[in-house]
């Protein structure tokens, strides 16, 4: 059992999402970075699709009521406080055995989001085949809502609901943090490329866009150059299906990149769609961060997908047992993490 002591920024349970219901208006949802979710679960000794806690900017403070093993995937500044008040740093990209009454302060998050998995899995009911939280319709997670202080989370033993005690401790770590690419986001043109002027497309390809503050799990709104619609087509379409990664442009010319909780259909023209391999990066985007786009072919997108799948498999295979994880400061010093998002730039 884990008790949430403090939770000030949005945090919710997410798994691989809720496919199969989009024709009924139920969004896909699921982890914004499905790759990091897989890594978090691997570090916790769980099957890849187990639900974990997805945190934004600042993670919660929690107390282990019984001994549990958790794993952190992300760039946290985490520490563990024992019952005597002694504090020790908790490394990233590794598991941590928490004794009863120990407190984990997950702290601030570099790179926007991070995941906390628990060995055995959180005991949550599957709703339409998924434990992902979709707060707008109250589906999944804890009563369909975001995490809040006072929540008590039961932990399963080897995936089986039980006394909430969790499995025996394990110790796993990833020797090298996964690297977030900082290149332009790769997109496939369309499905409504022809609704935009050629000048708008050239601006879209050539110029820089800034992630605005109007950003949540449904989408990222971008500031920057206006993408003008071709007057012959206008800025409205008879609604058709959308998907995470689709870039909608409403009448004001400001693009919106749709994310995991996006609605299933939309009435704005879509100038392009971010390729599957680059979708995980979108979850890490912070207000103030700049983005660029580059057009690729379907063949290049598929090759990128295969490469991403292979790299994720390699990353999971590299997990070793033992050790306390690595120290974040040492990593910064060695410049191993120069992800797409720099918290300093992100005002």
């Amino acid at each position, binding site marked *: 059992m884990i008790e949430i002591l403090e939770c000030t920024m949005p945090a919710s349970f997410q798994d691989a999402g809720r*496919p*199969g*219901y*989009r*024709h*009924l*208006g*139920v*969004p*896909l949802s699921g982890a914004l970075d499905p790759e990091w979710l897989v890594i978090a679960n691997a570090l916790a000794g769980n099957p890849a699709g187990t639900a974990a806690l997805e945190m934004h900017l600042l993670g919660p403070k929690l107390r282990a009521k019984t001994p549990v093993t958790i794993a952190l995937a992300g760039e946290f500044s985490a520490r563990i406080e024992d019952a005597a008040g002694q504090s020790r740093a908790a490394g990233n990209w590794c598991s941590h055995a928490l004794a009863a009454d120990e407190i984990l302060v997950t702290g601030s998050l570099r790179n926007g989001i991070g995941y906390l998995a628990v060995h055995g899995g959180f005991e949550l009911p599957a*709703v*339409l*085949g998924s434990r992902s939280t979709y707060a*707008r*319709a109250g*589906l999944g997670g804890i009563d369909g809502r975001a995490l809040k202080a006072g929540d008590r989370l039961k932990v399963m033993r080897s995936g089986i609901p039980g006394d909430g005690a969790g499995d025996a401790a394990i110790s796993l770590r990833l020797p090298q943090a996964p690297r977030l690419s900082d290149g332009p986001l790769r997109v*496939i*043109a*369309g*499905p*409504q490329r022809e609704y935009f002027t050629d000048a708008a497309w050239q601006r879209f390809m050539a110029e820089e866009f800034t992630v605005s503050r109007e950003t949540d799990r449904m989408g990222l709104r971008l500031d920057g150059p206006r993408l003008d619609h071709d007057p012959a087509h206008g800025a409205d*379409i*008879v*609604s*058709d*299906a*959308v*998907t995470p*990664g*689709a870039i909608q442009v409403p009448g004001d010319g400001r693009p919106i990149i749709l994310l995991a909780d996006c*609605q*299933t*259909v939309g009435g704005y023209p*879509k100038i392009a*769609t*971010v*390729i*599957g391999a680059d979708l995980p990066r979108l979850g890490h985007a912070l207000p103030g961060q700049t983005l660029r786009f580059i057009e690729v072919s*379907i063949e290049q*997108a*598929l090759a990128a*997908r*295969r490469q991403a*799948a292979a790299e994720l498999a390699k990353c999971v295979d590299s997990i070793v047992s033992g050790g306390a994880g690595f120290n974040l400061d040492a990593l910064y010093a060695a410049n191993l993490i120069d992800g797409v998002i720099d918290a300093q730039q992100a005002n």
Partner: protein
Amino acid sequence: MKPRLLALGDGALTLEFGDRFDPALNARVMAARDALASLKLDGISDVVPTYRSLTVHFDPLRLDREALTRSLLEAAQAPPQESALATRWLIPVVFGEEFGPDLAEVALATQRSESAVIEALCANELRVFLIGFLPGFPYLGELPEWLRLPRRVTPRAAVPANSLAIAGGQAAVYPWQSPGGWHLLGRTPVRLFDLADAARPALLAPGDTVRFKPVKRDEFLRLAADVEAGNSRRGDWQAT
């Protein structure tokens, strides 16, 4: 317009029959959906029909895009017919008063009596063109030309769940309490979204037909109590 395929990224393909709202296009969309479903292709996660298009969300590492393209273009040729996957529903609705606070206003705006508005809504089977906006939210059409009203100037912050509403020549039932700008005419006791049925949490699916049946307040309250007590089944609302 010939059907064409549009790329919605590398993990989805949209078969577009046209760019207008047109029931004839929608009938072809549903025929293509049925034809594609009969192929039982592996690697497809979602098939989303809209007014005028059919989108297939798929895993390109499991399902070859070229093969899916061929299947979709073939499915596009399927002639419109009575859909084997469609269900006909008969949905009771109580009109007016606190259940449909905009009925009088709609009657005034259309220069008809309240009973003429109710009659027009209940006279014909309406088709489910699309489910969207919220889980289980159906876009039903078409309504007679004279009943075609723009949305309310000021949307309501909270439309009660189960409200029957109209706007822009279409009708809808709100499955949840939510903000909304449509004109509220009545309320149904029927749950449009119910997690108890995981195979089909939304009562209505694209391609289904719905006929509304006016009921009196007493009947509505009795049916609503039955639903609340778990004494009704979804089959109860199917047209015979």
